């Protein structure tokens, strides 16, 4: 059984995606061993399928690169367990790059 999540990019991350998409609905295949899908798998899916050409601008060390906040249903993923959070069908995952300009 696959899980569908809405992913969204903000703070400039949309510019490194294919077609500069701000939003996408992605279907994650079931894990082979029947384990639940984690947000880490969403991150790797985005890195491998949505990022245009420089994956390191989105992800390093199998998680988001430093300077990216992850929001799950509009709440900081830190509260949810970070990479190990088990995504639910229809979850909304928002990736925000911190911006420094002024």
């Amino acid at each position, binding site marked *: 059984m696959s899980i569908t999540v809405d992913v969204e990019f*903000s*703070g*400039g991350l949309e510019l490194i995606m294919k077609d500069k998409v*701000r939003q996408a609905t992605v279907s994650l295949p079931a894990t082979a061993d029947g384990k639940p899908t984690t947000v880490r798998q969403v991150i790797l899916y985005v890195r491998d399928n949505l990022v245009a050409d*420089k994956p*390191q*601008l989105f992800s*390093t060390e199998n998680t988001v*690169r*430093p*300077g*990216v*906040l992850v*929001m799950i249903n*509009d*709440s*900081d993923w*830190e*509260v949810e367990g970070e990479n190990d959070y088990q995504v639910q069908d229809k979850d909304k995952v*928002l990736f*925000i*790059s*911190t*911006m*420094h*300009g*002024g």
Partner: protein
Amino acid sequence: HVVKKDHLAPDDIRRYSRQLLVPEIGVQGQLKMQNAKVLIVGTGGLGSPCAMYLASMGIGTLGLIDHDVVDNSNLHRQIIHTEAARDVPKVVSAHTSLSRLNSSCRVVVHDVLLDSSNALDTMRGYDVVVDATDNAATRYLINDACVMLKIPLVSGSAVRLDGQLTVYNYNGGPCYRCLFPTPPPVETLSNCSETGVLGVVPGIIGCLEAMEAVKVITGKKQEEKPNMLLYSYTSQPHFRSIKLRPRKPSCAVCGDAPSITELVDYVAFCGSGPNDAAA
């Protein structure tokens, strides 16, 4: 040393009458503003409207830090500076404009490049610090100094058509390092001079920074949970508010056992500093 005011002068009652009529402000709120000392780091796109509104609303003391001079390419967004101020130090130009707006606002100018050698001395004594800068190294520097000095930090940024706004180090909420313990890779760093910005975007965020400063000063901000406001002209709705984590006990600077207890070399830490035009 400035003596605290405990009542409003008749001139102030006339001048600020429209604010005194707002129940959540009133005489007590106006007095808090007049006794407040706010430091704005950066008198560019964000600092311009923030300083102008804070001065106009009656903040007693405004500190301004900037080491730059006014450039032609600043004028489309930095409305505190006039065409005549080109090549003038930004803090001098800003001081001139603020004096025109409200001569009773005490303006303290610091024409310095903020770094770990001067930050604590410069920032000490302010009630609120507004981050209106344009680079990662200075943002970490200001954050760490605010944590060490126990000053709430109103932090805004604006790039292209997007903006972000958070109050750090306040009321059990996170500091900048709680959210971003590791600096971003150098190749992701950019500021307005490389990526551009529509003039009014820092206008919107700078005004909202002034509002957050007022909320901290009047105490109203205490009712809010930690959050970040995101603004984008290209998404609908343009504004969204997201919930942030509380302060992280493991944070290197504001945590229970901090490993950073004095300011470090932030340009080395980030691999890029305030004077690097491009990443």
